[in-house]
């Protein structure tokens, strides 16, 4: 079923809460933060130029949206408006973000038809996993002009979805977008990573070499990342470095023909921060379908 939706490109960004705090406290041009925030400028400009109709963004919860009483492997926010989470020190100072219930429910059906049995959520307050990348990509005067459909991936409590599964989820999202019956130009946004570990004696583990290798692979050979186990990802990138599986969801929704327009890496403290823009040819019309698995 050929529809009218299309994916015009992918964005990726780390999502550490400290980034959003620096943004909100006017530190973007300090010596310490400038190398990171300069990396958002091309993303801001690209989104402004492309004017997408929708952003599908993939992040993990940090026990702010969900708790371990019930912890979904995959969850989808279909609300008309996404509330902002309070992470235990007050609600983030952002307005609630518009969703897209019509597409969201269609995506839910398409994914479950495609054997991705995702938890469908009418209330799913967004935490820094979503807010940091969105706030950095949409400056205050442009918030929130583009509706957002958020997808949560469990990376906190194993069993967590495999890298392969995340890549396939991206492919299934592309099929859903391309089958959508209305004109819809979609940007995929993968978040998280790169290397970091926030617990135990290994707190503060980073691996710059792996981070650079990952950035190369996610663009040129995502299949190779999809073959990696969590054990390998955690060994190379730290326990929380496994978050890069969410970049694979984004990458899985893109074609092989993408052009990397932008890539930035900065490792100041405990996380390897990275950003990326992958653009589809011909505003997403270059390649019309992804072969089913």
């Amino acid at each position, binding site marked *: 079923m050929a529809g009218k939706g299309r994916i015009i490109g992918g964005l990726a960004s780390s999502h*550490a809460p*400290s980034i959003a705090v*620096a943004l909100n406290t006017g530190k973007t041009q*300090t010596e*310490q*933060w400038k190398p*990171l925030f300069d990396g958002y400028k091309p993303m801001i400009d690209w989104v402004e130029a492309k004017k997408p109709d929708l952003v599908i963004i993939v992040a993990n919860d*940090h*026990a*702010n949206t969900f*708790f*371990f*009483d019930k912890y979904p492997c995959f969850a989808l926010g279909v609300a008309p408006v996404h509330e902002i989470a*309070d*992470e*235990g*020190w007050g609600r983030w100072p952002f307005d609630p973000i518009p969703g897209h219930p019509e597409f969201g429910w269609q995506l839910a059906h398409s994914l479950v038809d495609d054997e991705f049995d995702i938890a469908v959520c009418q209330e799913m307050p967004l935490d820094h996993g979503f807010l940091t990348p969105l706030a950095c990509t949409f400056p205050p005067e442009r918030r929130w002009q583009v509706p957002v459909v958020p997808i949560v991936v469990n990376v*906190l*409590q*194993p*069993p*967590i979805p*495999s890298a392969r599964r995340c890549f396939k989820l991206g492919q299934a999202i592309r099929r859903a977008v391309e089958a959508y019956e209305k004109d819809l130009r979609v940007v995929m946004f993968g978040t998280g990573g790169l290397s970091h*570990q*926030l*617990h*135990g*004696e*290994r*707190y*503060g583990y980073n691996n710059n070499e792996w981070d650079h290798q990952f950035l190369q692979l996610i663009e040129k050979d995502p299949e190779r990342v999809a073959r990696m*186990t*969590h*054990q390998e990802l*955690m*060994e190379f990138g730290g*326990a929380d470095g496994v978050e890069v599986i969410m970049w694979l969801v984004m990458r899985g929704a893109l074609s092989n023909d993408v052009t990397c327009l932008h890539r930035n890496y900065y*490792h*100041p*403290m*405990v996380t390897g921060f990275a950003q990326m823009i992958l653009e589809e040819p011909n505003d997403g019309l270059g390649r019309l379908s992804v072969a089913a698995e």
Partner: protein
Amino acid sequence: MLNIRSRQIDYSRPLPGTYLTTGVRAARGYRFSKFCMSLMSPAVRESFKADAEKVMAEAGLSEQERQFVRDKDWNGMLRYGTSTFMVLKLSNVLGVGQNRTGAAMRGQTYEEFMATRNVREAS
């Protein structure tokens, strides 16, 4: 070590200094995690700051669990069975910042830990 077979994680070969929240460890730590999660509520945070022992008793924490809190034994909590995202909610209420908590997990002072970082002001 957790007795779980998984294609993704080799639980017989745990990474050093790494405690994944799953299996019987997560089950054992669930009550403690739930206590940490309750600190998301401003009212509970205030009660905890006023009388931590009372809040821990009301949460039904065991003596061992209460001792982790009194000692700020972050790694103890992790090994016992809670997630670092729970620990960080607790340490935040106790007035210990993330990187101070992390330094203690590494067995270092804050200054020792910060000396290992590239740019100390941008966490």
